[in-house]
């Protein structure tokens, strides 16, 4: 659970976000968001609905173009590059190799008319995999890692439960060994026991693969469990950020205090 310490070797941030701003006409989507994300670190972004969390995530992932700012990613080949200035083929290539995006609704991230194996294999085939046997073996391996039985490999995701669909989406995204995963409410819409299993799985995968991740959620329990650091957003601005435990146990900003105290205790 350790965030990399300042002063360790190789302290190039994996992702640097500087002054990222996205407007919807006169309305603010998100404004002047800046942070660094180091390799192996998990960043949580919390806030209420409409606070700009998802806008920020989509802007970082290149799904829509921000108005101002930089998103600098430490690419394998050329070192830190501003992804917003990359050409579209480069950015899309990044999107299916080093980056992954887990949608809130598994249906947005899966091809519902394609079997589970085909869903997992798509990224492999997109980067040039042309050997059926190998693709299928990797798909089976990844199904196992996300706790879905091998025997479901030829079933369509529409025959899966919500939790299984979400796990399948995660497998499909992680199969090419990305270094940075964007997650938009990965546990949204799942019941609590399924949430717990999914979180457990995610935590395991993140630690095991040394992934960096940015997780957007409104569920404080999710960030408590997964995130090393936390940003709290309100009305498109970051109002507070810091280590997760620090922010949650000793909130400074009035809104964060409200957010933390709003959680129902069972």
């Amino acid at each position: 659970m350790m965030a990399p310490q300042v002063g360790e070797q190789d302290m190039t941030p994996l992702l640097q976000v500087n002054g990222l701003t996205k407007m919807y006409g006169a309305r603010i989507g998100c404004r002047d968001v800046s942070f660094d994300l180091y390799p192996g670190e998990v960043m949580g972004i919390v806030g209420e609905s409409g606070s700009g969390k998802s806008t920020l995530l989509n802007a970082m992932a290149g799904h829509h173009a921000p108005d101002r700012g930089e998103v600098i990613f430490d690419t394998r080949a050329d070192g830190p590059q501003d992804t917003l200035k990359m050409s579209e083929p480069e950015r899309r290539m990044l999107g299916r190799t080093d980056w992954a995006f887990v949608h809130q609704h598994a249906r947005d991230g899966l091809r519902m008319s394609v079997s589970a194996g085909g869903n997992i294999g798509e990224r492999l085939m997109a980067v040039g995999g042309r050997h059926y046997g190998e693709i299928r073996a990797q798909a089976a391996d990844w199904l196992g890692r996300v706790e879905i039985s091998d025997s479901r490999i030829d079933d369509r995701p529409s025959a899966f439960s919500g939790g299984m669909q979400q796990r399948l989406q995660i497998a499909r995204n992680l199969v090419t060994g990305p270094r940075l995963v964007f997650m938009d409410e990965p546990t949204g819409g799942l019941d609590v026991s399924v949430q717990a299993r999914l979180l457990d799985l995610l935590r395991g995968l993140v630690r095991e693969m040394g992934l960096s991740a940015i997780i957007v959620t409104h569920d404080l329990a999710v960030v408590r469990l997964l995130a090393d650091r936390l940003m709290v957003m309100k009305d498109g601005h970051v109002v507070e950020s810091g280590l997760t435990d620090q922010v949650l146990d000793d909130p400074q900003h009035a809104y964060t205090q409200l957010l933390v105290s709003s959680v129902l205790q069972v």
Partner: protein
Amino acid sequence: MTDHQKLAEAGDYNFAYLDEQTKRMIRRAILKGLAVPGYQVPFASREMPMPYGWGTGGVQVTAATLTPDDTLKVIDQGADDTTNAVSIRKFFQRTAGVATTEETQKASVIQTRHRIPEATLSEDQVLVYQVPIPEPLRFLEPRETETRKMHSLEEYGLMHVKLYEDISQHGDIATSYAYPVKVEDRYVMDPSPIPKFDNPKLEMAAIQLFGAGREQRIYAVPPYTRVVSLDFEDYPFEASKADHACDLCAAEDSYLDEVILDDAGSRMFVCSDTDYCRSRRAAGHVGRLGETGQPAEAGQSGEAGQSEKTGQSEKTGEEAA
């Protein structure tokens, strides 16, 4: 005085039905298509005096290609004598007054629906295909904006997802027609619903033009262009056909139609290319059922011709545009 001359004098029709400006527009699209092999060029498809699905795209390309000296052949599933072929041939006899033929070698322009003729085509021939859905990615990705982007960025992983699904469900690549190809190592192209048996023939000496009327696209494969059928390393492409010889002409190398003969389950296999079959029988080849009943010529236009229409109506779920 031919029909065409009468029409022209009456001022009703231009040569080959379309006006010269329209043909000019279509020729520009054809030239662009030839310059960028496999790329789908949008064009302002016109209303034609036939319904969409009957070859409006192919007819427009043929109309823009024809000159008064050309000899036209029209085939439908390989046959010269089925409805679609007969009506399009008549259409051009009437509006262009060009000579027509059923012999593949004598034709300079061949319009086809869903087959490539068995006879090898030469450099002075043009093969025009009728295409229902020009976009090979359409059933995988419904958004046109997205498929265009995928073509421009060469993102063709999805095409292999389809083949993957075939193998995982059927044990091998079950796609048997409209089998996707990569043209000149660049564009993935739908070769129109020809059987995959015909795919290797796409590398040929003749010019190949593809017209999709309803979808308003023209694309082309220039002579001697590399056309590779997509596959997996461990499941290579295979040009398959029915494992029989033609029952009329005994050909073992031609694509066959299966024809049900009665309610007792008897059936025959005949060449889908009627001209190929006829020329073989004229040269003295006789198949299993070639001598029973009528002489060869009558057998083709009577019994087999009749049955082929039945076979065709089964296949028209996949309409040509």
